């Protein structure tokens, strides 16, 4: 059996004196799609940042492909979309994608293809991102993340500001990937997931996938 893509072993995260994550043990294999859900302030985004290698745990360890040395390989195959879009407001849509493409050795043609796929080709691509609507920014951020065809996607509330048609399209693109998805929109996230975890008070608990989403059970949707 192959080592897990990421393995968190007894991970704690403390900000100042405030424990945010406590004794987290979590691992996932290739092609698994994990859903992390829970109330505001439960530690979901912090956990995703640790999985992304953007943040270090206060204690415990994080292994990539079974070792601490797998980080470069992991980063080359991973795309991360956080709360912010990670775009430059004073570059145009096209300049943003070409810049992020160059950072990863992606040719300019593929950047333009992605602009077309997310519906931002033509005059929209020549406008500065500062003047985009929230939905357009989110689409461009999706294109930025997908640009280098990552095998692993780490997504924090990716459906925010997206219309139903684009959510459907995006959901199709990520079907064949390894995904860790943080969302409050369980009606969108639940059907995509192969495993689900509730994050609450800094701890995680796996939720059985059989049946409807917890939101259905609670009568929220």
């Amino acid at each position, binding site marked *: 059996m192959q080592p897990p893509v990421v393995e968190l072993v007894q991970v704690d995260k403390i900000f100042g004196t405030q424990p945010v994550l406590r004794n987290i043990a979590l691992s996932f294999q290739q092609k698994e799609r994990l859903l992390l859900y829970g109330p505001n302030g439960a530690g979901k985004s912090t956990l995703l940042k640790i999985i992304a290698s953007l943040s270090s745990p206060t204690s415990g360890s994080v292994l990539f492909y079974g070792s601490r040395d797998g980080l470069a390989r992991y980063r080359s195959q991973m795309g991360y979309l956080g709360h912010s879009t990670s775009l430059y407001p004073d570059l145009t849509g096209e300049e943003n994608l070409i810049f992020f493409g160059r950072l*990863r050795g992606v040719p300019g043609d593929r950047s333009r293809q992605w602009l077309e796929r997310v519906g931002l080709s033509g005059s929209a691509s020549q406008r500065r991102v500062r003047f985009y609507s929230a939905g357009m920014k989110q689409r461009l951020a999706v294109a930025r993340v997908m640009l280098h065809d990552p095998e692993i996607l780490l997504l924090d509330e990716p459906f925010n500001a997206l219309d139903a048609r684009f959510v459907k399209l995006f959901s199709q693109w990520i079907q064949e990937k390894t995904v860790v998805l943080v969302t409050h929109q369980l009606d969108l996230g639940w059907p995509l997931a192969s495993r689900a975890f509730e994050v609450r008070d800094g701890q995680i608990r796996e939720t059985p996938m059989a049946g409807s989403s917890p939101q259905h059970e609670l009568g929220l949707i």
Partner: protein
Amino acid sequence: MSSGLQAAIAILKKDLLLEFRGKEGFLSNLFFGLMVLLLFTFAFDPSSEALRQGKAAIFWIAVAFASVLTLNRTFQRESADRAIDALALLPVDPAWIFLGKFLGNLALITLLMLLIFPLFMVFFNLTVTSRFWLLSAVCLLTALGLSCVGTLFAAMAESSRLREVVLSIMMYPITIPVLIAAVQLTQQAIKLTGEIENWHWLTLLLIFDAIFLAAALVIFDYVLGE
């Protein structure tokens, strides 16, 4: 071309494009530097010994103040919408990211010097002499030192709410040896006669640049992390 070098060049091009697209940033720094120069020119009696001995210091005060304003913006664009996260997750050595940012600052500070210096010559009635090569070397080595320390500290200060103040507080004390060496060597270079003395200041500049560049390349990884 290695992927790291490719990333460094992309960051350099992007920084210069954004700097000159938003002209107000660079131009206001330049005018600030020129204003400092102008005020000092009128503050001293043109025939006084103090002005004769302090010319070089006035030039470097103008450059140092204008440079720190430029350096303050180094990581502001990156943190505006957390583009820094996308850079931090690149599968390249973070030293390449530092190199891209550092070269952008080096280009901008050198340009500031190139634009301030002609007015410095006019205000203080200086002429180009055979010692121009020394002046060029001093300017380049000082720009290297300021850019290197400034880029590193700008990254450190970025997470602070008082980043402008923090950068100045951290940067000026560390760069004092560079500025003293620059003043001493510039004073020598603008003299029309006499032997050039105090070559050890040039050695100090070289050593300072080498140490800080090497240190910055090594520790930038830790600075870029949380």
